[in-house]
């Protein structure tokens, strides 16, 4: 793959040519197809895409939590330069939680309803850090107050069902950050929440990660959340990366025709348009991914080559775009670099 253009910092997480497959009796479905990206320390990488784009699978593949029959069929995942995709599950379990924290869409899947919030926090803290019971409890109370739960010394002994949805998501975030991980994978952390609560959770996630220097892989379908939170954005389509670049570029001047269509399709307050830009058709099913560029049947700018050849990510300014429209640009930038 291509070298990062501003590689002053070594990446925290590197994903190289990752491929996730689902063998079925009618052949193998490729849900994540040859994608590469990296996350620098302290950086927020937004991964966006519509349903079926494979963004959640990418997140679960990074921490190797794929449910069978899904499996990583190729590529590498490196954390701080060390391969983690081929580690045995016991070692991975230590990495998850200690070095990589996780926040999922439904807070109830991450919390055990049978134990108090305090017990779950203390257990996680003591698994990953060398602390006594008393210290762990003290740290747990600190964390709860940090994520904005009032009267934490009382509420720490309550069960998950005694908290509201927004509060539960705060507790999940507390669990994710309790061992000071260097990376948090947040999969649709605000999708199940009300608009006003969404803003609170996004604020919290941003503040905590900023304070602790934690990097975030933020998986969401909501461009608004990305615009407010991410430093860089990866746009996925049909299991492939369409475009990766700084958030300003992707949101304001997207290169890939899919991203352009996506941005035009989002209504904005105060901008009274008669019609929204629409991309006709729908994301292809995994069984019928088109040849060449997967987006070409819906693409207004498709030409012959799109039908036959699959585009590799091409560097355009600070972004990488998988689109043949920018093939000339690759030659130019390649020359200038040399």
């Amino acid at each position: 793959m291509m070298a990062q253009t501003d590689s002053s910092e070594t990446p925290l997480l590197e994903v190289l040519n990752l491929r996730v497959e689902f063998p079925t009796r009618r052949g193998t479905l490729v849900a994540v197809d040859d994608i590469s990206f990296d996350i620098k320390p302290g950086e927020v990488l937004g991964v966006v895409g519509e349903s079926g784009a494979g963004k959640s699978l990418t997140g679960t593949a990074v921490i190797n939590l794929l449910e069978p029959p899904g499996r990583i069929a190729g590529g590498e995942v490196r954390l701080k330069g060390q391969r983690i995709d081929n580690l045995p599950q016991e070692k991975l379990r230590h990495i998850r939680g200690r070095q990589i924290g996780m926040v999922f869409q439904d807070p109830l899947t991450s919390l055990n309803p049978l134990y108090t919030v305090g017990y779950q926090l203390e257990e996680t803290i003591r698994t990953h850090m060398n602390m006594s019971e008393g210290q762990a409890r003290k740290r747990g109370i600190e964390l709860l107050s940090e994520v904005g739960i009032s009267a934490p010394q009382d509420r720490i002994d309550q069960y998950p069902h005694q908290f509201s949805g927004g509060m539960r998501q705060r507790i999940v975030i507390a669990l994710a950050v309790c061992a000071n991980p260097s990376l948090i994978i947040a999969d649709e952390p605000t999708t199940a929440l009300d608009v006003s609560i969404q803003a609170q959770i996004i604020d919290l996630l941003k503040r905590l990660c900023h304070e602790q220097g934690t990097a975030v892989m933020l998986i969401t379908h909501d461009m608004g959340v990305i615009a407010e939170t991410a430093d860089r954005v990866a746009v996925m389509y049909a299991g492939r990366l369409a475009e990766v670049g700084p958030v300003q570029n992707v949101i304001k001047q997207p290169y890939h025709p899919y991203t352009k269509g996506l941005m035009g399709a989002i209504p904005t307050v105060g901008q009274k348009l008669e019609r929204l830009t629409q991309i006709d058709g729908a994301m292809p099913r995994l069984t019928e991914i088109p040849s060449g560029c997967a987006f070409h049947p819906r693409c207004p700018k498709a030409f012959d080559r799109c039908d036959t050849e699959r585009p590799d990510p091409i560097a355009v300014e600070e972004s990488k775009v998988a689109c043949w429209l920018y093939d000339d640009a690759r030659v130019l930038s390649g020359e200038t670099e040399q």
Partner: protein
Amino acid sequence: MTDVLQDKRPSVQPSGPLVSVQGMSKYFDVSPPFLTRVLQGRPRRALRAVDDVSFDIPHGSTFSLVGESGCGKSTVARLLVGLYQPTQGEIYFDGSAVSQLKTRRHLADFQRRIQIIFQDPYASLNPRWRVRDIIAEPVRTHRLLPEGAALRKRVAELLDHVGFSNKDGEKYPHEFSGGQRQRISIARALAGDPEFLVCDEPTSALDVSVQAQILNLMKDLQKELGLTYLFISHDLAVVSHISDYLGVMYLGRLVESGTASDIFNDPQHPYTRMLLDAIPDLEMSGRKRIPVAGEVPSPMAPPAGCHFHPRCPFADARCREEIPGITESKNVRVRCHAVEEGRLTPEVLAEAAAART
């Protein structure tokens, strides 16, 4: 009813609104079971899902209801189409009170003229029916057309209208994607040639690119057929795109209503202000969105007085005790003591905004 899809707008616009809701309330009985009540001495309890809501929807316009979960907006949708009966108040449709529709003929006529589109495109179509039968259901139920060629032609017209070929009518719902199913729902809703469509979060389950297709289709149909919409959503950006009029609900009460442009340009109620502040900023103007403090209380035990007072930075003693009445302020109708008393001067608002950031 030949060429039913042609422009049906009456040549002379009637003066009154198509739909008028007056003081409508819906209470649900959420009491514990009889035995528990007797044995544990617990009282009956009522959940006020919709509490004294009034609004008008003029012919050919779109009225949107926004609010967070539990605010009662979906209950309003179901009340309007007759799935629930209001506990209090009255709905007027085209000038006549809906509760007074007694004869079978009047009721059937009302049912034909008012239709609903639901949020979940997977649950709203019977999985065992072919698409053409799904679309023909309103026509068959009201015997609008005889079986045979006329009905087939009508179904083909409807399919074409929402962007399908006639052949697609032979398929079953599972062969379509979410957005396509939502278009089938729209075709079914249009089959009886209605005037009023209630759309209960029609795009919330869809991806943005598909959402744009549906919103565009809805706008096109409104223009062509002169439809009137009640649009329910929690997404303010979508609402601002599609609405002419807007109502903001909070825990069963309509706290602000007026034209969409008035409310978006100059929101009056503190809750509306906060909702607008909470919209993610896609323009990347650097504006920081200001989260609303606190969470929506349980509708089972709403706060006394103004329901919003625990989260409101401008609340005072009166807000905690007295239910605010409706005040007219700058063209919009607001339920807020602070607005009524003129307490929300620009200086106060600026100060509050500064305090929260």
